[in-house]
């Protein structure tokens, strides 16, 4: 098996774990873990854009009030529920962006025509999310989109990115990836109802 395929499979399991996470704290922990994995695989991590994303989405969700009112500005109420929903969504998005990079950075080749399209789809998605921030002047918008789409295959140095030749998997790689998946699912298990009944502290977390 090629290393890129192993990374793809591992990433797919990680995304399943991410989907299973409902608790805000759990999703936060999984997001941090995925960011670490993606950073290790070469994705640059900048804290500020992610914080801006988290804050913006959370605040935008206060437009639909939900749950406990924390405070009010005139007739506009900031509610805990809406902030939680917004933060949950933002964390899901951030982790999905980093997880797709983790899965695709080794450029896996899924067999068949559909497989090729899906692997390229995630590759381009990763390029879009990475390069969108790099476009400095987004005005006019159509010009900026043109620039992005025409240079989508270029790396940061302006060179055309070529598909990497993936090496074959060693025993050590399999063990490392099993460990990654185990960490995610251990976290998910820790936040199940059974675990909460055994460890009351977890039940108190949002």
């Amino acid at each position, binding site marked *: 098996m090629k290393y890129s395929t192993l990374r793809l499979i591992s990433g797919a399991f990680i995304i399943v774990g991410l989907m299973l996470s409902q608790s805000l704290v759990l999703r936060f922990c999984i997001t941090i873990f995925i960011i670490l994995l993606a950073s290790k695989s070469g994705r640059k991590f900048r804290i500020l854009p992610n914080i801006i*994303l988290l804050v913006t989405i959370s605040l935008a*969700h206060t437009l639909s009030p939900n749950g406990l009112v924390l405070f009010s500005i005139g007739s506009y109420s900031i509610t805990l529920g809406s902030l939680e929903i917004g933060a949950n969504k933002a964390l899901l*998005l951030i982790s999905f962006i980093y997880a797709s990079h983790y899965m695709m950075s080794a450029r896996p080749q899924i067999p068949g025509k559909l497989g090729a399209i899906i692997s390229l*789809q995630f590759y*381009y*998605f990763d*390029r879009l999310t990475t390069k969108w921030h790099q476009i400095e002047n987004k005005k006019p918008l159509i010009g900026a989109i043109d620039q992005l789409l025409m240079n989508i295959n270029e790396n940061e140095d302006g060179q055309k990115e070529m598909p990497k030749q993936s090496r074959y998997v060693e025993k050590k790689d399999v063990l490392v990836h099993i460990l990654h998946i185990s960490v995610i699912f251990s976290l998910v298990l820790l936040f199940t109802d059974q675990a909460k009944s055994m460890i009351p502290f977890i039940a108190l977390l949002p």
Partner: protein
Amino acid sequence: MTSHSKVRIDLVALFAACTLFLSTIEYMIPKPVPFMRLGLANLPLILSLGIFKNREYFLLLVLKVLGQGLISGTIFSYIILFSLAGSLSSAILMFLTYKLFKDKVSRVGISLTGALGSTITQLIVSRIILFKEATYVIAPLFLISGLITSIILGLFASEFTTKSIWYAQLKEQAV
């Protein structure tokens, strides 16, 4: 695989990635009802008309629905039914409108047809599965928001098809 076929695969994948990217942006925008869609991810579908072959267009549709489900975390829930029903009816209507009228209908018209198809289908599914009689309460909100967003989307698509160099090159290759 021939080089032409590779280029086509590459193009479908790029459009599919754009639907995923726009789904991500749409997901960030708060909505009063969880399965309500603004339809941003429809933009690549609208733009692909006239460039893609029929099967490539419908393949893009499938990838769009799956991508939306993955981004919003609804891929394993009943909510994907709304997305699937809405996207399918919208895509078929847009496809038929384009095939029947070609250049006689603008991108705004195509977008409006798609939004109408999607909204009506989602309301029917909602009436059957979820909200029953209460569907009539949310119907005006759905119809009005669908109308507004589809006009904006159509206007953008129209602007993009006339001004984008990248799109012009694609269109030239397709012809």
